[in-house]
């Protein structure tokens, strides 16, 4: 069942962030959310994840769907190792697999404070992929990656999207080109 976003609006302290937005998301594939900063991309991901309720309108088709998320911030447990951070979400086996695929397995015993920004980002992505699910929400997941690394990792996202919906927030045109569909969120309301 497709995910329908119907006339949703969301404001924070009287400031409209999303206004009367409607569109449909496919069941599988990569869908891109584009738009300048402050246009409501992150808010929309949070609404899809069910972390917030819209002020009006509704989102349907998410019932019984398992949702995974790479937040805009890494949100890693500071006292746990990279491996533990991933394993706590997706189990030891999946953690091992995804840390290896995302080329971060050599740092699996390290705590986040000893990792670079890009490495933390990969641990966060590994956690989301290890958790799996029907919908994967990615909020600028490739921040801090070098071009070659990104080239090696993107195929895994594409592979994942064959059985799930990947909603990708990005400012990068080459990343947006991966998407089967996209929507541009404007700041003008």
């Amino acid at each position, binding site marked *: 069942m497709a995910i329908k976003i119907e006339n949703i609006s969301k404001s924070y302290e009287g400031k409209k962030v999303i206004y009367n937005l409607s569109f449909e998301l496919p069941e599988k594939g990569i869908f891109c959310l584009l738009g300048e900063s402050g246009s409501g991309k992150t808010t929309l991901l949070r609404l899809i994840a069910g*972390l917030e309720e819209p002020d009006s309108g509704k989102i349907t088709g998410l019932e019984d769907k398992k*949702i*995974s*998320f790479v*937040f805009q911030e890494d949100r890693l*447990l500071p*006292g*746990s190792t990279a491996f533990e951070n991933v394993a*706590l979400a*997706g189990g030891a086996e999946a953690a091992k697999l995804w840390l290896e695929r995302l080329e971060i397995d050599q740092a699996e015993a390290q705590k986040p404070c000893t990792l670079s920004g890009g490495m933390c980002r990969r641990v966060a992505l590994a956690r989301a992929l290890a958790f799996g699910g029907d919908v994967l929400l990615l909020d600028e997941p490739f921040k801090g990656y070098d071009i070659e690394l990104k080239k090696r990792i993107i195929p895994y996202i594409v592979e994942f999207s064959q059985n799930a919906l990947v909603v990708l927030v990005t400012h990068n045109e080459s990343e947006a080109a991966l998407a089967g569909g996209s929507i541009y969120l404007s700041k003008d309301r």
Partner: protein
Amino acid sequence: MNFIMKAERKSLTVLRPLAVTLFWLGVWQLAFFLVKSELLLPSPGQTALRLFELMQTGGFWLKSLSSLLRIVKGFSLGVITGVVLGVLTGRFRLLRAFVSPALNTIKATPVASFIILALIWLTKDGVPVFISFLMVLPIIWSNVAQGIEETDKNLLEMTRVFNFSRKNLALKVYLPSVRPYFLAGCTTALGFAWKAGIAAEILSLPLKSIGKELYNSKIYLETTDLFAWSVAVITLSIILEKLLVFLLGKIKSK
């Protein structure tokens, strides 16, 4: 060069506290010379000698141990209850609204009021335990509740998305957040428990207690005894605090 600097630093860490101690002992001795009355102010030497004499007797150790056990009992009960209440009120705001006034009242009430009340309610031995407990409870409670409230909201949201079990949520998110608040609370509370516990002993006079000895030294105008027992109290307090810091350090590193 590096070796010399290290050796210098090491000798400084040993010499500095020694110099500070000698300075204050000197001030004490000088005050003794000025006062010229053992009844009002015994000298450090007289105090040390009396303490040494007391330490030769079995009663000294028995009384010190009895006081220590009472205070540790009150402290432990306060820590356990404070943690349970802190967790509950940190998680449930409504409960906090009910519990806060009671615990804040305990915090603000003079300890003497509670001691007098406890003298009516409890046995001689129970009073210091209860008073130590009352001193510790609000400190541990407020620190634990604060640690829970200040847990990173972003991490809590993350655990919701990734379906963390209650056990992992407690161990991996709440515990690291609460730990520094709890450890700081424990060190502060121990000092309060010790001082208030001895004060409670002075008023409740349990048979074997430091408090009773302090009271007797007042009655019989044995100022040297008062100083000797006070030195014993301070020493025990320092040992207990060091032991606690050591134990908490073990928890911290885990």
